[in-house]
């Protein structure tokens, strides 16, 4: 029997009438069965919905915990409740929604994430992606930025549901951002995000391949990288002081320069820097499959070197200084540092590490309410771009950040900036100025364009501020002679300065 503490769970298949009663907290009119380890809920037939609830609740009221719905019925289910029972909508704000493909792999009301010992590596990769996207130093990064990355979504999805493909997760991730972010937020930095995503693709595949062992297909492009990382993990597990030998062995045929790394223990930090530069100089856009292996191996080795460049201490600034051109080096550097690491609660990455790891490894409990604002499946049905507020049916109560469930238990942050409703209200306000439009057509044009250019203007002024800071720094030579920096002096109200 599936039990949690002293409770057990009931399961029933309901048609629309029965479902209305169940979701309103009333009992089931037909028969229900107990969910036991030998009696799993069966897939609902098309047009019907499975409901799981906790038995023995207070009085006659039952609280539904999980709805099991065929993919084809989600549209009608969510749409119907938004229209006819809006008090219960969105359903996924208070109740889990499962499709049969997730139900089939479920054997209890809780699911424990498993990343095959690569938790720290996935955490590092998540933080790296957040650093790369934000173009900000680690110290100023927030946890929400990490939960808004592809890497987090892929790691969490694989930790909970090992049967999912990377493409499926990234497609849903991109769908959620397209659907919920304002156009200006979506457009901002799109090119850079695409470049970062392309550079991370082989790294995601490599980590998934290591997690799943031989049970998953590995392309020939990542096979040597997988073997190299496995060698490094094994070396660290055995506390081998010459771990670099294990790392380079599977890839040396593709990167002959790696031979020099075998002497790493005798190379001083300045020499390691020269080796790092040599590897980076060898990076070139790959064409053939062999060139792709060489490219990935070079980036991995450069990232590895950045973690030990300062004579065993990390020098991540080396990788970060190349982030705009070769983001994969930063990604590898942040990842490699966590390979083989078992202690996950230290304040790595300026304290972000344990927070990201905590979210990656948080058990998914179906007997507790969801922790998201709503699920993507429901948002896809209820969002309506033609409305003043496209998200009105989702009853958004967050100011700048939504928590959206991409897949069961896989919650990502989606920054919405200025809420869509505010944005639309602003457009409406400018539209209510016909006199201004008639008198000043250029002004009207500016008003109409304002919502679209506002973000860019903000960026421009931020850049101006940075330039001012930089020009202030230009005064440093005087100060750096051991003299105090000369600041701007306000005008004194001197008597003789007045003209009479």
């Amino acid at each position, binding site marked *: 029997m599936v039990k949690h503490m002293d409770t057990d769970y009931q399961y029933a298949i309901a048609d629309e009438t029965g479902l209305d009663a169940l979701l309103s907290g009333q009992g089931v009119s037909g028969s229900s069965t107990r969910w036991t380890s030998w009696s799993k809920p069966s897939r609902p037939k098309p047009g019907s919905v499975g409901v799981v609830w906790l038995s023995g609740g207070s009085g006659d009221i039952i609280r539904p915990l999980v709805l099991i719905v065929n993919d084809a019925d989600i549209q009608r289910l969510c749409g119907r409740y938004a229209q006819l029972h809006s008090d219960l909508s969105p359903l996924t704000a208070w109740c889990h929604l499962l499709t049969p493909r997730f139900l089939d792999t479920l054997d209890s009301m809780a699911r424990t994430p498993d990343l095959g010992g690569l938790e720290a590596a996935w955490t590092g990769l998540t933080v790296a992606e957040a650093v790369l996207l934000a173009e900000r130093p680690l110290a100023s990064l927030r946890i929400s930025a990490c939960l808004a990355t592809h890497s987090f979504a892929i790691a969490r999805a694989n930790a909970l549901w090992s049967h999912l493909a990377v493409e499926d997760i990234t497609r849903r991730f991109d769908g959620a951002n397209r659907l919920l972010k304002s156009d200006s937020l979506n457009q901002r930095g799109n090119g850079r995000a695409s470049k970062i995503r392309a550079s991370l693709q082989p790294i995601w595949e490599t980590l998934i391949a290591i997690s799943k062992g031989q049970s998953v297909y590995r392309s020939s492009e990542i096979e040597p990288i997988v073997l190299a990382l496995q060698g490094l993990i094994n070396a660290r597990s055995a506390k081998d002081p010459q771990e670099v030998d294990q790392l380079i062995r599977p890839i040396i045929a593709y990167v002959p320069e790696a031979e020099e790394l075998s002497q790493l223990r005798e190379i001083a930090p300045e020499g390691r820097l020269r080796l790092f530069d040599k590897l980076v100089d060898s990076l070139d856009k790959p064409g053939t499959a062999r060139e792709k292996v060489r490219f990935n191996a070079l980036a991995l080795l450069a990232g590895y070197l950045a973690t030990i460049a300062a*004579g065993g201490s990390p020098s991540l*600034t080396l990788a970060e200084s190349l982030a705009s051109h070769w983001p994969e080096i930063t990604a590898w550097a942040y990842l490699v540092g966590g390979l083989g690491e078992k202690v996950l609660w230290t304040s790595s990455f300026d304290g972000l590490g344990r927070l990201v790891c905590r979210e990656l490894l948080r058990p998914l409990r179906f007997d507790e309410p969801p922790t998201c604002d709503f699920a993507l499946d429901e948002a896809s049905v209820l969002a309506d771009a033609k409305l003043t507020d496209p998200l009105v049916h989702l009853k958004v109560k967050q100011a700048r950040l939504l928590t959206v469930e991409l897949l069961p238990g896989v919650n990502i942050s989606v920054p919405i900036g200025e809420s869509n409703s505010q944005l639309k209200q602003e457009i409406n306000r400018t539209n209510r100025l016909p006199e201004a439009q008639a008198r000043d057509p250029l002004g009207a044009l500016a008003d109409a364009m304002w919502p679209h250019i506002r973000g860019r203007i903000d960026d421009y002024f931020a850049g101006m501020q940075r330039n001012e800071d930089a020009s202030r720094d230009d005064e440093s030579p005087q100060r750096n002679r*051991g003299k105090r920096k000369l600041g701007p002096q306000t005008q004194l109200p001197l008597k003789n300065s007045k003209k009479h």
Partner: protein
Amino acid sequence: MATLWWTKKEQLDQSQIALIEQLPLRETFLVVGPPGSGKTNVLLRRAQFVRGQNLPNVLVLTFTRPLTEFVKTGCFDAQGREIFPKSCVTTLESWQRTLYGQHRATLPGRAPTLTEWKRQLAAGAMGFRGQGRIPSYDALFVDEAQDLLVEEVKLISQWSSAIFFVGDDRQRIFEQTEGLDAVREVVSPTNVRFLEFHYRVAPEICRVADRILLPPNGKSLASTEHYNGPTPATVEMQPQALTKDRQLEVAARRLQEQIRVYGDLIRQGDRLGIIVARKDDREVVFNYLETIQALAGRSKIIRSKEDSDDDYDPSFDSDAPICILTVTGCKGLEFRAVHWLFADELSHHHTPEHYYTVVTRAKTSLSVYYSNALPQTLARAYSETGVTEW
């Protein structure tokens, strides 16, 4: 500013923790230890601890303004929060000048030497305590005690019954001082403590230092090191004489590499040091580095206050991690890499203690450059193969 040298409690060894927390609060102690043994760290942490024991009137006395500024960087935690009042850290001379002001006395006039003037300054302040104008201190903490004059020790002793001296005779920079002998006069022999192990200086550099000055207790620096920094460390004495311009060129090239490879450590408060003998050469070095694009704006002259110095700024600047100083100015400081330029300049003025002090400022990398001949003391101390004895 984030600080690298401010050791976290979990990184302290048992002997350091004992000195901070377990000694009686109202007694005078002398702590002796080699470079990098954590003397200044223990001093500041002890001051913080004592202050928290309902003894708030404490003062930390250092020797020079640059050293004061360096110690002040330890008054902040990694998040930049003040954890010990930086107003409680000052130079010995500044404190004495304040005493003169508070007692409405006139400072002594010019003297033939700086040492002589310092003797007069301390001697002139000797009667202030008896006037009873201001209360004594709950505790005084004195860094670099090996450079104290006997008059200064006596003056300090008047102002508190709980003094915490730290020092190392082998790092004595100022001649004609009595060193730790004067301090031992006011400290009970049972209250002298030793820090045996050190963590800052790499073994390669320890071996050079051990050949400059013999250890007083028979334990060499190399035998007591627990260095946990970047490896391998390097000691480079340039193989032949170079012109000054060429020395600058070679040093600048190395600095460009070091500022990149130690980027993370620099962000945490680490610095690179350029040491010269002559004050004028600090400007020469600074001007040269300013002409190199990758180093422009990244260096700073660290110096003491001079006459007519209205805009004096001795603070350490995290944006300018390359510090340019003189041999005497580097006292008490530490650098990830040290470049000793024009090392044969004024070599006739340098004592073994000077050489020892400069060499042990380097934590991981030491490079020495010279114009005519490598000073004998350094030449004898350097072995390219790293063999300790032959």
